Structure formats: C-alpha cells, structure tokens
C-alpha cells in the first residue's frame, strides 16, 4: 500500500517544478544562455554528477509504502504493517536487516566488545565474539584478507566495465548532441564514484563496510538514509523562503514609501534575533505543540515527517531576510530605470510591470541565492540537531548520527566510524553543492559576462 508522507509529496512536486523550469529554459535562448555558461565549467559538471548520485538516493528514499503483512487465514482482509518503507529500504534490505549486537569496526568479523562466550566443551571464555552477519560466510577467519581483497578487486573490475559502457554510450549520444560541455570532467567524477560504489557494494554483501553503531545497525545504511533528510532540508526550505523573500523584497523596492518601511521593519526585527536562538524558540514551541497533539499522527514516521517539514518551514521563515534585502536593492535600482518609467507613462499596471519587467530582471539573484543557500542549510541541520532543535531523534540524519557517535568519543580505542561516515558523506555533498553554486554564480552574474 503506497504511503504519501507530506515531504514525499513536496519533494516530487519540486522535481516536477525543476523539470518544468528546465524545459522552459531549454526552449528560450536567453534563459538557456547562462545555464550554457554554467555547463561549460568543469567543476560544475563534475559536481553535478556527484549531486545527481545523491539526488537519486534521496528520490529512491522518497517513495514510501507499507508492506502487506502475511495473512493469518486465506481470504482475510489484507493487513498492512505500521512502519512505512521506502524503495531504498527494499534495495538495501540486506543492510537494513542484518543487525549485530552492538559496535563493530568497519569490515570486522568480530564484535567490538568482549563478551562471555560458551565454548563447545562447556567452558566459558571472555573474548570478542564473532559477528552474526559481518564475515559470517568465512569458515576460517584467516581467509579474511584474501576475501576482502577479492571483493575489492571484483568491485573495481565491475565498476571499470560499467564505466566504459556508460562512457561509450555517452559518446554516441550526449557528446554528439552537446559537444561544448566538458564531458571529460563528468566521466572522471562518474569514474571516481563508481570505483567507490563498486567495491563497497560487493563488500556490503558480506561485511559491514562502515561498521555498526551502538544498537548494531549498519552505518552505511544510516548514512544513505541521511541523504534524504539533508536534501529535504536543503530544498524544501526554499519553498517557504522563496515566496516570502521575493514578495517582500520586490514589493519593498518597487512600491517604496510605507510598504518599504513596513517590510524593512519586519526584516530588521527578524534579523536582529540571533539565528540559532530564533530557530530554537520556534522549534521549542513546535515540540510543545506536537507533544500536546500526539493523537494527530497515526505512525511515528508520520510524526517525524511532520516535524521535518515544520523544521523546513521554520528555517524558511527565519532566513528569507537575506534574499529580501538583495531583491529590495535590485528592485529599487530597476524601478528608477527609463524603461520602467516609460511603462508607467504608458499606463501599464503595477502587476504587469512587476511580472514582465522587474521579476525577469531579478531572477538571476533568486537562482544564485537558491543554490548558495543549499549547502548552508545542509550544514545547519547537523548543528541544529546537535543543539537539540533539529529533526526528530527518530529521523536518521547526519546530525543525529554525529550526535549519537559523539557520546562514544571517550571510548578507548575510539569508535570513529560513525563520525567519519557522517562527515565524509556530508563533506562530499556540501563540497559538490558549493562548487556547483560557484559555477552558477559565475554563469548568472551579469558583471562577469563578456
């Protein structure tokens, strides 16, 4: 039975909107020109490949359903599980279901903690017990090194084959169609990605590639699940931020007078409250509200999802001021220009001037602000979750992963893999987003046009 979580619906809506926007841009040369400049940058193309991989994982994780439980008697009405699963969960079933008892290091065959183990002859010894799943296929642990090496080699070989096939296919189609795009950079990024994914996938069938956490669940699985949370926060926030920022900024700059005064007052007031504190105040109140209306949500997943959505709304409500200020300045400048004055003189209505003359001429600022905000929001999620005003503790996110792993810092030897995994996945995502954002800024900023 399919389940529509609110964020899922919005994510797909956003995908549709982006597709529609891309289609519009491709049909109009003046809209396509800046994007063509963006796609001539090597960094942009390479980072876009990485971002696409992340988005693919996130989208797979945004199709939820409730699995049907096995019927107790034939002919009984179908019963569905309470817990919602996503397509990604299905793909990663082995990772999701193979739980260990507690911590285990990456690729380990034994648990991280000593335990009392019964020997076959009845004696009990304190030792590191074998894992239930990690390396369980090995009869003799001496073969561990050989097995891991073979899996890595196999994964690399498979990746190389897949990569060559993809590159060959692209040569025939994409490269011919758009020869000016630096496909070499895309191929290099794709190759690097595949060389990591190939061995990891093959290793994951027998081991815990990134180890397990305190309750024994696979860290790689958690990291992949966190991607959706990050992407949702980075993108859905803009759904709130954009309308507020655009309406307030353009209206203030265009109408001036008391409208300007009111809007400026509003955003100075909001701006004057330190960001984290404002978010914290909002989220604390949200917590009280959700706790007092616990009956509204059928499942805990739904509740966590509503909280995620509310967090996006709060982030949007508290961060539209920057965009509004930029747009106000630009609209102020534009409204003094001759062609706007001429439009006034011809009796063109305000709505038409705003829609046809002002908005198209500030759109580059909007797009630049959008892509620039994304990486900041992804980083903010981790910090907010640490402060305790982030996503629901039951939602997997980089923030909750770091938060849980932080408590184990003092252990000897240190449990580092959860932290390392969360930081590595986050760093790759944010770096790709930053590089892409830089390219977009260079492509759209009219000052750099030659």
């Amino acid at each position, binding site marked *: 039975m399919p389940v529509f979580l609110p964020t899922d619906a919005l994510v797909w809506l956003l995908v549709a909107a982006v597709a529609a926007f891309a289609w519009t841009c491709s049909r109009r040369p003046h809209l396509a020109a800046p994007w063509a400049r963006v796609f001539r940058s090597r960094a942009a193309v390479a980072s876009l490949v990485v971002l696409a991989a992340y988005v693919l994982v996130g989208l797979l994780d945004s199709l939820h359903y409730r699995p049907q439980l096995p019927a107790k008697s034939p002919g009984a009405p179908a019963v569905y599980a309470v817990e919602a699963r996503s397509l990604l969960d299905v793909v990663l079933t082995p990772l999701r279901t193979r739980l260990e008892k507690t911590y285990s290091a990456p690729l380990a065959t034994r648990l991280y903690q000593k335990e009392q183990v019964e020997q076959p002859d009845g004696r009990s010894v304190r030792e590191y017990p074998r894992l239930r799943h990690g390396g369980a296929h090995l009869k003799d642990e001496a073969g561990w090194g050989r097995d891991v090496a073979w899996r890595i080699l196999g994964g690399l070989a498979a990746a190389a084959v897949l990569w060559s096939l993809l590159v060959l296919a692209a040569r025939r189609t994409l490269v011919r169609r758009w020869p000016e795009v630096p496909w070499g950079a895309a191929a290099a990024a794709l190759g690097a990605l595949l060389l990591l994914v190939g061995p990891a996938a093959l290793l994951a069938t027998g081991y815990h590639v990134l180890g397990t956490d305190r309750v024994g669940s696979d860290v790689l699985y958690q990291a992949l699940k966190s991607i959706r949370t990050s992407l949702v926060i980075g993108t859905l926030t803009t759904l709130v931020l954009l309308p507020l920022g655009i309406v307030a900024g353009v209206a203030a700059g265009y109408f001036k007078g008391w409208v300007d005064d009111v809007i400026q*007052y*509003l955003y*100075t*007031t*909001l*701006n*004057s*409250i*330190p960001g*984290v*504190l*404002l978010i*914290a*105040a*909002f989220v*604390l*109140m949200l*917590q*009280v*509200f959700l*706790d*007092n209306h*616990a009956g509204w949500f059928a499942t805990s997943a739904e509740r966590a999802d509503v909280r995620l959505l509310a967090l996006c709304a709060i982030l949007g409500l508290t961060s539209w001021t920057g965009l509004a200020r930029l747009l106000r300045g630009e609209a102020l400048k534009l409204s003094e220009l001759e062609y706007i004055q001429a439009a006034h003189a011809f009796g063109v209505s305000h709505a038409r001037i705003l829609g046809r003359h002002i908005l198209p001429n500030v759109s580059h600022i909007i797009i630049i602000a959008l892509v620039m905000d994304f*990486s900041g929001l992804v*980083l903010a999620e*981790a*910090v907010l979750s*640490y*402060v*305790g*005003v982030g996503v629901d503790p039951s939602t997997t996110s*980089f923030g909750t992963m*770091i938060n849980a792993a*932080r408590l184990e*810092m003092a252990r000897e030897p*240190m449990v580092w893999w959860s*932290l390392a995994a969360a*930081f590595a996945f*986050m*760093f790759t995502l*944010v*770096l790709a987003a*930053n*590089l892409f954002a*830089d390219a977009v800024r260079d492509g759209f900023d009219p000052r750099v046009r030659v």
Partner: protein
Amino acid sequence: MISYIVRRVLYAIPILVGVNLLTFLLFFLVNTPDDMARMQLGQKRVTPEAIQKWKAERGYDKPLVYNDAEAGARKLTNTIFFEKSVKLFVFELGRAEDNRDIANEIRTRMWPSLALAIPVFLIGIAVNITFALGMAFFRATALDLTGVVLCVAMMSVSTLFYIIGGQYLLSKLWHLVPISGYAGGFDALKFVVLPVIIGVIGGIGSGSRWYRTLFLEEMGKDYVRTARAKGLAEPVVMFRHVLKNALIPILTGVVVVIPLLFMGSLIAESFFGIPGLGSYTIDAIQAQDFAVVRSMVFIGSVLYIVGLLLTDISYTLVDPRVRLN
C-alpha cells in the same frame, strides 16, 4: 553626530518592541502556559493542581494581557505580558527553572564567553586578511587557485568536524591541552587555546574567500592603475593602497558582530565545557527552560541593534566620504 545617534537609538525602540511581541506570541500564545506545564511535568497523569502549582511558582497563572480582577493600572501590569515581556526592557529577566536569577547568571558567565570569543575574533581577522592578501597578491596563479579551492573545501567541512577532530588530535592523541573544562584567571589559557585555534580555522574558508573578492575588487580600480603607472612596486601598491582601502568594507562588516561576542559561541562552548553564555543557552534549550531562552533572544537582539549602530558610526570614522544625516 549626537543627534544622529539619538535618532538611531529611537529607531531601535520599535524593533525591540517587535522582538518582544514576537517572543510573547511564540512563548505564550502559540502554546499556553498550561501546555508548557504539561510538557515540563511529563505528559501522562498530570493533575490540574500540579499544573496550577507549576504556573503559580513561575508567575504564569495571571491573565495574558488584561487582568479583569484588578483595579486601575494593575489591570494591565499584573499580567503575563507585563511581568514577563515588558520587564525585559529594564533587564528584569526573572528566574530560571533552577530558581537562579538569570541576570546574575549572565553577568558571571559573560567573562568565559569573552575569553573565548575575543581572541577568535581578533586572530581570525588577522589570519583571514593575511591569507586573502596573499591570494590577491598571487592572483591568477596556481597558488591563488589552490588557495581558493582550499577555501571552498574548508567551507564545506562541518564546524562539528573541526571541533571533534581538533579534540581528538590535540587532546587525545598528543595530550597537549585538556579536552574540555575551564578555570578562572590565567589558568583559563590552556583551556581556551584549542577552542580558539579551532574557531579560527573554522572561519578561514569563508572569511579569506570573502576578503579576497574585496581585495580583487579594489585592485581593479583606477587609482591602483595610477599607482602602478607611476612606478610603485607591487608590494607598496598592495599594502599602502589596496589594503587600506579594502579595510573599509572589512571593518564595517565585522563591527556588527562585536557586541554579539558577548553571547559566546553555542557549539564550541558546549563541546569544550566552557561555562559561558553559549553553553548556558544550549543547556536552556535542551532543558526547555523557556525563561532563559526568552531572555537570551531579547539580549541577542539588543546587542545586534547596538552592532548596527556601531557599524554606521564606524563608517564615518574610517571613510571621510560618508556623512551622517
């Protein structure tokens, strides 16, 4: 000048009133004091008496804005709005959940916060300007490109990583400084070194890149070309002309955060166990101590407005072209 400052201070009042109304709206209207009491006391099996007692202890048992039972001016003053929101203006912040006076707490916790924030601020600016100047000097060379790429990479690393990584390397592996804690007087030094280093490193990425663009913008101007044309050496052009003029946007950009240094750094303080205002705020958020969060929101906005005022004044001090009116 004085009349300008007076005008700006008067302009700040409506903003503070706005902040005040917003916090009142958030903390008392979206959720009633009853909701907060239930949350604090635990959801299940809370008796109405317990809620009444909780509210009475904290003074939340009054009407929100208008008290019908009282006479005269007390109709308006003996209310939650007056007691809890209006009194913030005279910095009567009330008491925290542990019954300590918030204003008193802020006065003692301010110093550790400053001990951390001021060095991070000053050293950070110096380091960022140095790096940015270096990149601008070697612009469009491999060195500049490496620097920019490094900056973007450093910007992409989470603050939490810098903190955890630094604690692991310097404290756990090399045993150079204690992992966390704080002591008064000169003993504070060894506790503050690591957070300061991490604070500075964490800011290098975005800071240097931003200053680099400022320097490059300045270097494209006509007076720089003139300076070169009259035969000045490049270092002289950089230091005597470009640096001086680029300092104007840099200085005015950083002045706004100076008052906010009092608030401390939320994340660093709580990781390093420094008993400053940042960790105070975080503890309050985690313990859902609404009185403290409300006070910090108000103080934060007061400090921000002071920062805006200082920014405007600093413009006139460093740039003789700007006149206040």
